């Protein structure tokens, strides 16, 4: 972890020095650049900041005075309640459990996609089998059929396999990934043929070549795809809503809505808890991005060969 952070800062320094000559040719543009950047940061961060600050107030205050920018002092109580209070209709689900569910979905989704798409791309690039190109384009064409379009048949399949209300049912139908396959295919194609030949002469079979050479070489690529897919998986809403009805399988993203819904009636809704949950729901993806950022950029920009 610590080395990762140190590396992060040096990477940032390096890009800064690398870009200096280009900047200086435009001289004054620099201040303007920063103003634009700061404005962008403000635009993105301000709502988050307000949401976090408001979540530290009592719900009555929020109900009466709206969103807050100051410190409400109720931070510990609210977040403790959100994480540990058994809520929902059945009073069985806590914030912690929902976080756990979200993590399982996000990780399963991301890791499953990486494994499946890497294997698919490996087969397509390195093995000559009939209709390989055709297969690739069939996989690719599934991009034209997003989840929303095929939600009914997907439900039908999961239901008939008896996987409703299971983690498997949540994750398995989603892990085939055309995007991932495409990225890995492009990456594998850029690996020089001589490397494969050298490995063949060194006596590495197909499995060994994949494991000893291709997987380590794809590290940055895997990190990049992991980030994207983890965030996508974490933020799934429609899919878990359809596949799971039991509250013990609720994810954080669904929980936010649950908080607002359950307490509506004569009571004042627990705005603070809903906001706290939203803030909590944002943390893990943000952490993943911070940790993998350096590899992510490396994976997209340079490919070490």
């Amino acid at each position, binding site marked *: 972890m610590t080395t990762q952070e140190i590396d992060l800062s040096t990477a940032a320094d390096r890009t800064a020095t690398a870009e200096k000559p280009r900047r200086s040719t435009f001289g004054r543009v620099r201040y303007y650049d920063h103003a634009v950047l700061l404005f962008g940061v403000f635009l993105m961060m301000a709502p988050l900041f307000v949401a976090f600050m408001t979540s530290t107030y009592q719900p009555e205050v929020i109900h009466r005075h709206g969103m807050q920018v100051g410190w409400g002092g109720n931070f510990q109580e609210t977040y403790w309640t959100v994480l540990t209070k058994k809520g929902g209709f059945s009073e069985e689900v806590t914030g912690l459990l929902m976080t756990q569910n979200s993590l399982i979905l996000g990780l399963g989704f991301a890791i499953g996609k990486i494994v499946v798409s890497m294997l698919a791309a490996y087969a397509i690039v390195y093995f000559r089998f009939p209709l390989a190109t055709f297969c690739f384009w069939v996989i690719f064409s599934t991009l034209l059929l997003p989840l929303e379009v095929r939600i009914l048949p997907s439900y039908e399949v999961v239901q008939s396999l008896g996987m409703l209300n299971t983690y498997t049912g949540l994750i398995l139908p989603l892990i085939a990934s055309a995007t991932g396959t495409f990225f890995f295919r492009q990456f594998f194609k850029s690996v020089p043929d001589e490397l494969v*030949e050298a490995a*063949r002469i060194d006596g590495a079979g197909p499995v060994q070549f994949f494991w*000893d050479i291709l997987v380590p070489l794809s590290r940055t690529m895997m990190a990049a795809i992991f980030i994207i897919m983890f965030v996508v998986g974490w933020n799934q809403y429609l899919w878990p809503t359809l596949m799971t009805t039991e509250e013990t399988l609720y994810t954080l993203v669904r929980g936010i809505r649950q908080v607002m819904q359950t307490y509506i009636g004569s009571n004042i809704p627990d705005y603070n808890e809903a906001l706290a949950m939203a803030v909590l729901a944002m943390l893990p993806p943000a952490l993943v991005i911070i940790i993998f950022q350096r590899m992510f950029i490396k994976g997209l920009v340079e490919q070490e060969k």
Partner: protein
Amino acid sequence: MTTLRIKNAVKRYPNGAHAVKGVSVDVEDGELVVFVGPSGCGKSTLLRMVAGLEEVTEGEIELAGRVVNDLEPADRNIAMVFQNYALYPHMSVRGNLAYGLKNRGTSKEEIDRKVQEAGKLLQIDEFLDRKPSQLSGGQRQRVAMGRAIVRDPAIFLFDEPLSNLDAKLRNQMRLEIKKLQRRLATAAIYVTHDQVEAMTLADKIVVLNGGEIEQVGTPGEVYSNPATTFVASFIGAPPMNLIPARMEGGAIDFGDQRIPHTANFNGPVTFGLRPERAQLGNGGALKMDVSVVEELGAQRLIHGRIGGHEMTLAQPAEQEPPKGSVAVGFRPEDVHLFDVTSGVRI
């Protein structure tokens, strides 16, 4: 003993391309054989057929007494050095050297010993724990050779290993490869398009053109007795002068002048003369009109015309540069005559 015997090797690709058209070559024990030719002549394909990276369409590859046509590259007891080194970028130098041995199931102590040995031999022992990206081009090439050496192969296969290096380093590494090969006394095939590399390294040169052998011989033979006009123009720098002429009644006719020659032939010929084998001045038999003089330091190149055809001749630097017209002399044995249509030596 013969290490490698290539018998009538043919390579035809599924798309109909005919890369190698029946080539037979023997590589004796400890011999360094160079395949040389222009790009697309099939030299790399032939090497890859020996390595097992290309399938053999027809013919036989016999290595150390057994036919290896259907063996995997790893089972052929060969080692290959690639043009772009093809080092595993994520492994240390040690990892690169050890990978093949590990896959063979060699014991850890044995691997360590061999890696150390190869490291010392190639002077890369201090870099063993670095990644290839932290090494210079020459050092990477050494690592690639180290990876070949630790395998103790029956034959080394070099596929243009020096093409990615700058000129100075290339000369240095060329010498090192030769020394190393002599020291290990292992047979080797070396593929290159560079005739200087071919001449300096080879015990035996195989000149290839269009998937066929033009000539096999020692560098000296290939240089002084080229079998065809192709070999004559490919080997030697600057290349041999080849101009059309007529052989009639014991003399070569260039159109505007004739010189006596003893060859027993009548009809059109291609007349060949190496630039460095001509003597300028001193009442030579031929007259050449000088157009341009190029100064090279040790010698100079005199460009001119004989019988309406371009000629380039070399002259030692200590002689006076000629002007206008100069007499060109040469020994009769330095004259090469080739058939006009087939290009074969007469």
